[in-house]
Each structure stands twice: as structure tokens, then as C-alpha cells.
């Protein structure tokens, strides 16, 4: 709508007059003269992408995304959709947060640095470990970084990284890519009724093991019962014990530091983000022993020239922009703004709210399992374990048919076996759970 501006980018403010004056100042006839590109590789085609008004663009995106069907998602398996308090959006959307760069000039970035420092502190309390970084991309990449950290700091000649056989395939594959440039090899250890098969794990552990990874709750929603023993096994083998979890689970379940975890990874965006098609926030906490080997950004405290407390990015000599190929990671852009959202969401909940959500994750999942189990033709939970948020149910009919039928009724569930579906309560109001039970009953009958 800038009538006196040249057409083109709506976000370039130049008037025709400005442009003329500027070209004169740089002694060029046209803007094209400023491009020093040999003719033979100059692009003279078109992208064939239409320009649109803001309103038309909004309508386009709304119409494309409008093709997504509305479903009550009883989905989890590592990704959860809690209700996001309105305050989170309103504060995180303040443009100073949203539109600022990494805090290389801390004197004009104190607010964001403090928020990230508080985020780190939240993770320190949740994990009991001394150090948490500002973020890795997501749970899978955080797991990958944990393995390369293990590779850097463990003195052993070993190369084996052990993960549970039930680990999500995506996490396993991401881990494999992260260790592809090292000597590490990813191997699986057996699982027993959802949880770690401790005897089986013990059998496979040897001095070649550099890292043991376990999750709680597991991908099947079971709460791991022998974390301390896994930690001991790892310690005995001089291997890293890396534990996967998330902030809500950590509010209630055993504190990682108490079970010997060297690193905690996971998706912290269970607080702060809606489901967002899998977008996440890689939680990464570890012991202060590995301070100078940690990947990612760290915010620390210092003083300014007037001796007032001030925050700053610190230990940057670990990072790629300084250490280049000897950096502790290649990460540069991370998930800082998501970390801010997570910190605000956690602050809105407070410790009582977080513990309450965690307790409800247990009681609501177990209650729902009981109700589902009452349906003839369904057994739930299939694992004789305590559950968090979700559980696997056995259905007499083919699971995919059951899921398809439920989908027609507006419910999305996981299919995790020929006769197994998985159901998660997170973010689903009680009234919808009631409807789900009724729907499942109808589908099974």
C-alpha cells in the first residue's frame, strides 16, 4: 500500500526518490549494476511464485491447513500437547523476545539472557545436575549430542552406545547420524514388559560400552523402575548413563542425579509448545565435570563495569564460531525462544502445578486404562507396570482397523502392533476421554 514506494518487497521501505538518491550516491545507473555476477550463470528465469496481499496469503495458509482434519488426539510417544496458558503466548510474542538475535551483545540483551538463565536453573532443579544448556533442537538431537559428549570425555577405547530396543526409530536414526562421524556404534539392549530388561542389559555391557541410554517414562508410557541399577551398571563400566525424560515427568519421578545419570536429555517443549507437528526443545543437562565439553549455549553470571550483576553467554570457546572444527558441537541457531516459552509455562504452573500435572499424568492414564480394560475385547494396560500419560492396549481385532474406525469417529490413536494400540491422556479433557471410551466400545463391539 505504499503508493510512493516501488513495488517489490512490502518490507523494503524505499521510495522511488530514495532509490534514485542512493543509486547516485553509489554511482550506479541501476541496482543491477551492483551485482557482480558473470553473465553465464546469471539467472534470467522466473520462480513462478505469485505475490499475494497479506490478506490473500493468510487466506491461502488457512485454506491449505484447513485440509487437516479435526481430531481428538490421544497421541503421545514422546510428543505431548498440554494446554498452553494464554500468558505464555502473550509474553513470548513480545517482539523484543521474538525478533532479537543471539545475545552476542549482552549489554542490550539482559532480559533474554536472564530468561535463559532461569530456564537453565529450572532444568538444574528438575534433574539435580549442575549444568543445563540453553537448548538443543529436540530430544533426538540432544541424544545425539549426548553420545558425542560421551565420546569426547570417556577415556575408554570403547565404541558401543546402548539404547533400548523399543526406542522410537526416529531417535535411533538421528543418533546414528550424529555418531556416524565417530567410531561409535549404536546397539540395542532388550526390554522386558516395557521397561529395561536389567539382566539382559547387564549381559551386554562390557568395557567397550561408552554410553547407556534409557528413558522414563518409556515410549510405551511405562515408568522405569530400576534406574538406580542402570546407573550402577553404567558407572561400573565407566560408561555414561544418559537418561531421557521431560520436565513434567521429572517433576514427580526420581531425580536423575539420584540415580546416577551423567546426562539428561528429552523434550522440554512438552511445556510451552502446542503439538506443532513434532517441533521440540532439546533438554540437555549434565554434570559440572563436563562443563567445558558441553554442547550448545550457556548463560552465566558476571558483573558489569559498575559491579552490578549481569548475565552473558559464557564459555563460548567451546562453540563453532570460535573453535570451528574443534567445537563441542556444530550447533549455532538453537531453540532459545522455545526455551523461553517453556520457562514461562513452567513459571505459570509453579512447582505445585507441575507436580499436579505429573500426578494427573499417572492417575488419568491408569484410570483410563482401567476403563478401557473393562471393554470386552480390550486388555489394558498390556504392560504390568506403572504408567505415565499413556499406555498400550491389546485389541482382539486388527489394531489398524480399530484405529481407522476411531479416526472416523474423530479420535486419533497410535497403532503399535498388529493388535496393539497406544493411548495418551495428555491434553485431552475428561469429557473427551468419556467420549473416547464410548467410541472404542462401539468400535470393538
Amino acid at each position, binding site marked *: 500500500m505504499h503508493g510512493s514506494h516501488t*513495488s517489490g*518487497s512490502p518490507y*523494503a521501505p*524505499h521510495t522511488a526518490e*530514495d532509490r534514485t538518491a*542512493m543509486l547516485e550516491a*553509489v554511482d550506479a545507473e541501476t541496482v543491477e549494476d551492483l551485482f557482480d555476477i558473470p553473465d553465464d550463470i*546469471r*539467472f534470467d528465469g522466473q*520462480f513462478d*511464485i505469485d505475490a*499475494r496481499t497479506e490478506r490473500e*496469503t*493468510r487466506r491461502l495458509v488457512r485454506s491449505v491447513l484447513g485440509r*487437516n*482434519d479435526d481430531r481428538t488426539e490421544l*497421541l503421545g510417544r514422546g510428543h505431548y500437547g498440554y494446554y498452553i496458558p494464554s500468558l505464555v503466548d502473550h*509474553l513470548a510474542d513480545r517482539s*523484543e*523476545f*521474538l*525478533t*532479537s538475535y543471539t545475545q552476542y*551483545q549482552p549489554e542490550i540483551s539482559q*532480559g*533474554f539472557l*536472564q530468561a535463559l*538463565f*532461569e530456564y537453565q536453573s529450572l532444568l*538444574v532443579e*528438575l534433574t539435580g545436575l549442575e549444568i*543445563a544448556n*540453553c537448548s538443543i533442537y529436540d530430544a533426538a*538431537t540432544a541424544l545425539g549430542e549426548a553420545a558425542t559428549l560421551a565420546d569426547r570425555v570417556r577415556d575408554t577405547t570403547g565404541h558401543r552406545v546402548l539404547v533400548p530396543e523399543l526406542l522410537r526409530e526416529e531417535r535411533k*536414526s538421528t543418533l546414528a547420524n550424529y555418531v*556416524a*562421524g565417530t567410531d561409535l556404534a549404536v546397539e540395542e539392549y532388550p526390554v522386558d514388559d516395557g521397561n529395561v530388561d536389567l539382566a539382559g542389559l547387564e549381559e551386554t555391557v562390557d568395557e567397550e560400552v561408552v554410553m547407556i541410554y534409557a528413558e522414563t517414562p518409556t515410549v510405551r508410557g511405562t515408568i522405569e523402575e530400576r534406574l538406580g541399577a542402570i546407573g550402577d551398571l553404567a558407572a561400573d563400566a565407566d560408561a555414561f548413563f544418559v537418561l531421557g525424560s521431560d520436565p513434567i515427568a521429572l517433576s514427580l519421578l*526420581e*531425580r536423575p542425579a539420584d540415580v546416577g545419570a551423567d546426562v539428561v536429555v528429552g523434550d522440554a517443549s512438552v511445556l510451552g509448545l502446542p*503439538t506443532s*507437528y*513434532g*517441533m521440540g526443545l532439546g533438554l540437555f543437562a549434565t554434570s559440572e565435570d563436563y*562443563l567445558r565439553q558441553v554442547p550448545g549455549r550457556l548463560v*552465566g553470571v*558476571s558483573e*558489569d563495569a559498575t559491579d552490578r550483576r549481569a548475565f552473558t553467554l*559464557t564459555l563460548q570457546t567451546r562453540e*563453532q564460531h570460535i573453535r*570451528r*572444527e574443534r*567445537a563441542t558441537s*556444530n550447533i549455532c541457531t*538453537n531453540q532459545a525462544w522455545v526455551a523461553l516459552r517453556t520457562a*514461562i509455562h513452567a513459571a505459570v504452573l*509453579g*512447582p505445585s502445578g507441575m*507436580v499436579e500435572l505429573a500426578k494427573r499424568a499417572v492417575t488419568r492414564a491408569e484410570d483410563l486404562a482401567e476403563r478401557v480394560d473393562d471393554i470386552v475385547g480390550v486388555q489394558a494396560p498390556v504392560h504390568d507396570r*506403572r504408567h505415565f500419560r499413556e499406555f498400550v492396549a491389546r485389541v482382539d481385532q486388527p489394531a489398524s482397523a480399530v484405529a481407522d474406525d476411531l479416526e472416523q469417529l474423530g479420535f*486419533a490413536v497410535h497403532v503399535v502392533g498388529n493388535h496393539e494400540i497406544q493411548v495418551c491422556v495428555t491434553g485431552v479433557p475428561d469429557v473427551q476421554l468419556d467420549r473416547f471410551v464410548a467410541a472404542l466400545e462401539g468400535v470393538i463391539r
Partner: protein
Amino acid sequence: EYEPLLSEKDLTRVDIGDGDNGDGGESTDSPLPDDLTRDSLELPELSEPELARHYTRLSQMIYGIDSGPYPLGSCTMKYNPKFTEDVAALPSAAVHPDRSEASVQGTLELLYRLQDYLGRIGGMDAVTLQPPAGAAGEFVGIRVAAAYHEHNGEGHRNEVIVPESAHGTNFASAALGGYDVVSLPSDDEGRVDLEALEAALSENTAALMLTNPNTLGLFERDIAEIAEMVHDVGGLLYYDGANLNALLGRARPGDMGFDVMHYNVHKTFATPHGGGGPGAGPVGVVDELAPFLPSPRVRKRDANSKTGKPVYERFEPEHTIGKVHGFDGNWLVLVKTFAYIARLGDEGLADASASAVLNANYLAEQIDYEIPYGPFHHEFVASAGEQDAADVAKRMLDYGVHPPTTKWPEIVPEALMTEPTEIESKDTLDRLAAAFNAVADEDADTLEAAPERTTARRIDQTSAARNPRLSWQALADDS
């Protein structure tokens, strides 16, 4: 002015367990046996008004793009159109990644169309949207190159060549991929030294990573020859998309001979940087490399749906390297990217580059610092000369503007790497130049004492690193 930490406002301990209420803590019944739970959780418990004020205050201690010019060279900070936030916040954008394909056709269509947009813009045949940031994109490129060579029985290639003036992530990503990094010096004019390149290339060369225009803003004029040289030894040519905002509509990496590239969507397509992220680093490749891209990608089925609409599906590239993210990357960022491209179209994108290049050249003309290399495009690297570039930056803060990137690339002594982008008006550039020039006239004492007018004065980096206190817990222990 000073805002206390949340923990300084309140710390409340909530005891887990069955009624054993410690001193001052809260307790509630636990649904789990003691041995599966922690003892307590101690965090701030504050009300909504208190939190609104805390974070509002914090936000006021941050300089963002809506505060003023942000000429960070190579970091490309530009205005983030507000409407892209609205479309990313649509309820229909919030779906779980494990939803069935049939029920998320909207999401898949958007991803497909964005793949297509990016392919056209970069001149690439196939695109993955999975990498969650530029560096992750580089890593994917490296992994794809490795898989390609491996597939062709050339797994012995163990070197990646990187110009010494390249972004630090290039080195780190290659190293993360297990490669030996061969650093390539620049020639006298600030471009790739072809003789040095000749010397560096060998049968062990897996790839050459290049930014074009390079970090001095110079177009690598010999790019066609470089491509031929690399290809002649069987290597691949990687394009670091950090500087793509200089070329839109004028040149495409694919046309220059690049085999693989990443796009920095916050740099080129104006998604917000969010104080450090999230970003997205889609990777485009030529046909030959497409089978190695991460899985899944999205394609259109041959047959339409019953309602006549195209049907989209996920698929696994034949020789895929697998996953580099637990799901499909930073979805919300991709939505904003799509919206930005769809808003600007051909003409808007081309104008963005034209205006960015004009702005850089105009600004350069106005400032008193020497600029050793040119002709440059979207950015230039001035030299602070006798002044310390980092001090210059601190002093610029006092003039109410964000300073340029400093002390890098090292080829320019005391570098001031400056990129105004297309969003600055002539008036703003004049103000920015005035800030540069005011500082240029100041003495070392003034510079060392800067900044004076900021929320915090100069912050001691050394003591922060020497005595790392990285949490409020550490701070409490410390005092």
C-alpha cells in the same frame, strides 16, 4: 531497573509423597510409591500478574529488530512480518506428528509446496525440510555427501575443504560428519585462491563448502571454474545459504554448479530469530543426491482424492541417511517461511535482494571506516583500523543502534562486518552511518569505557568464564 530473578521473588518447595509436610513446603498425596518419585520440587510459585510484570520487564531489556537497525553481517537480521505469526498460530497448524497421512493433508500440502518453492528459488531438484537449523542443514549436506560417496564405493574420501573465511559452522559440521577439514586461504582480492584450491583438491576430497557471495560480500566470480575443478576430482560442491539474500532472482546455486545447499530461512525468508532460534535449515540437492536425503519427504500422489484435490504422502528416499530430527523439524518456522515466500512472490523476493545490495553499497559509501574488499553485495567488511572492533561495537550501542559483527572474517583486520538488509530506509542508514562515524572519531579511552547508556554497562566476560555460575542454584551456593 534491575529485575530480580524469579527465584529471588519466591521459592516454594513442594514435597512429593503422602502427607509428610516439611518446613514450609507443600505436600500432596502421590499416586506412586516413594521409590519411583523424587522427594520434593523447589521452584518459584508466582501469580500471573507477577509473571506478566517479570517477563514484560525482561523484554524491555532487549534490543530487537523492532527497536532499530541490526546490521549483523552474515547473521542477516531483518524485519519479521507480523502476519506470519498469526498463520503459525492457527489451531489447524497444531497437529501431532504421529497423525495419519490422510488426516493431515493440510500439513503435508504445505510442506510439499514449500519444498517446491525452495527448489525453484535455489535451482535444486529435491528438498528436505527436516533440518532444524542452518548448521543442521550443513550436517545433512555432509552426511548426504558421505552417503553418496559411500554408495559409489568412494568411502575413502575423507576431506572437506572450507575457505578460511567461511562460517564456523562449516568447519564444525564437517568435523561432526567425521571429515578432516582442509582450510583454504583467500587470494589477494578476498576470493577463493584457485591455485590453493587446485593444491587442496585430491581424490580424497569429499566436498568443497562455499558461501557465495562470500563473507566479504564478494561474488565468487570463478564459481563455474571452481565447480568444474571440484567435480573433476569427484568431489561435491556445497552451498552455504547464509548469504542467499544477496542473490534472489539474480543467480541460483543450482545454476552455478552447486550439488547441495542449505537455506537459512531466518536470514533469507525473514522468520524471527527468537534470540537464538528456532530456525530451519532445509537442504536442496541435485537429482543425483536426492535418494540420500533424510526421510520422510513429501510427494504428491499421481491420483487425486475423491473430491478432486491432490493427495500428499510421506515417502522414504531410496538410500536415505535416515533422520536428523525426531520428527519433521521446526514446523512452525516452516509455516512462517511458506507464508513469507507466498507473500512476496518472484517480484518481492527479487526486490528484497536488490534493496539489500543497494542498502549495503549506500551505507558503505556513508561511513568513514575503510572497506578493503569489493565490489560487495549485501554486506561489506570495514576495518576499524587502529581501533578495537569489539570496542567500536560496544560504543555503537551508546548511539542506540545495534553494531555489526566484529573481528571476523579475520582477513580484514579489526573487521566490522556489516549487513543492513533491505528493510532499512535511507533515513535509517544515514542514522546508522552517523553512529559509525561518531565512533570513528572517538578515542580509545571512550571506546573502552563504552557502553554507558545501556541497561548493563560493559560486562566482564573473563570472570564469567573463570567462575561459571550457570543457574540460580549456583548463584545461591556462591553467595
